[in-house]
């Protein structure tokens, strides 16, 4: 089964991920790749609060994720790997050839970003970063929930 979704979502672990994607994909483990959360027991406890006990959560730094990705890809269970920003996912892609598809699930408004989709706001630099990933063969699409149409990068970058 392995990692079924590599998702960029600045809300990290939330309803769309746990329920919206987790249920139809029958997800049994979540990997949150975030160096800050990895170093904070309090933040980890906070994210654990809302996850059903049958769903395992793994907190990993970027370096740990690159190292452990082959093991997760060989896991019998279905999983979702999450990052909170494009840069973290790009670092993961740089460090491992196992990331072939990236789902842009939610990047919200912030100063300097412009609206590309209802749930995707990007700076020009962030849009370029996604195009760089695509140029290296990673399939980048935007899709907030499974019932929505996957939007190709060309339509939102």
């Amino acid at each position: 089964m392995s990692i079924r979704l590599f998702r960029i979502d600045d809300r990290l672990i939330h309803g769309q991920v746990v329920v919206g994607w987790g249920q139809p994909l029958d997800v049994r483990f979540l990997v949150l790749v975030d160096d800050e959360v990895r170093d904070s027991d309090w933040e980890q406890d906070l994210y654990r609060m809302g996850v059903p006990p049958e769903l395992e959560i793994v907190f990993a730094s970027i370096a740990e994720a690159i190292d452990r990705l082959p093991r997760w890809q060989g896991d019998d269970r279905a999983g979702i790997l999450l990052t909170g920003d494009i840069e973290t996912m790009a670092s993961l892609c740089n460090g491992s050839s196992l990331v072939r598809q990236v789902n842009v699930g939610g990047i919200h408004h912030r100063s300097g970003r412009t609206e590309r989709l209802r749930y995707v706001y990007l700076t020009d630099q962030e849009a370029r970063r996604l195009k760089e990933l695509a140029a290296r063969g990673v399939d980048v699409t935007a899709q907030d929930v499974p019932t929505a149409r996957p939007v190709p990068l060309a339509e939102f970058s």
Partner: protein
Amino acid sequence: MSELRGVIVSHAALAQALVSAVAAITGLGDALVAVSNEGCDEAQLAARVSAAVGAGPAVLFVDLPGGSCLTGAVRLARGRSDLAVVAGVNLAMLLDFVFHRDVGPADAARRAADAGGRAIKVAVA
């Protein structure tokens, strides 16, 4: 000390609908404030919740026992005795809460959670 208020933090328009329902039933229109996470990242949601709480005290009611609404509320309440958080908000707990705001946030939160839990019934044929 300011009067205890309730701040409902929810997905989409649920919080506003609950505020409207409580006002329609009780006539109390100023005890609750609605916050939606629509279009927010974590920082933006935190700013919305913080603005709704104001100087406190307050009980933060969130819709799901997990996710961005809960994490935002718990982050804000961390280390603050004038705030308490209840997850799994329902109309029954809010109706009880608005009439029992003469206690501290922690006691009000416990009472509201108890009222909300007791209101859940199952009817089968």
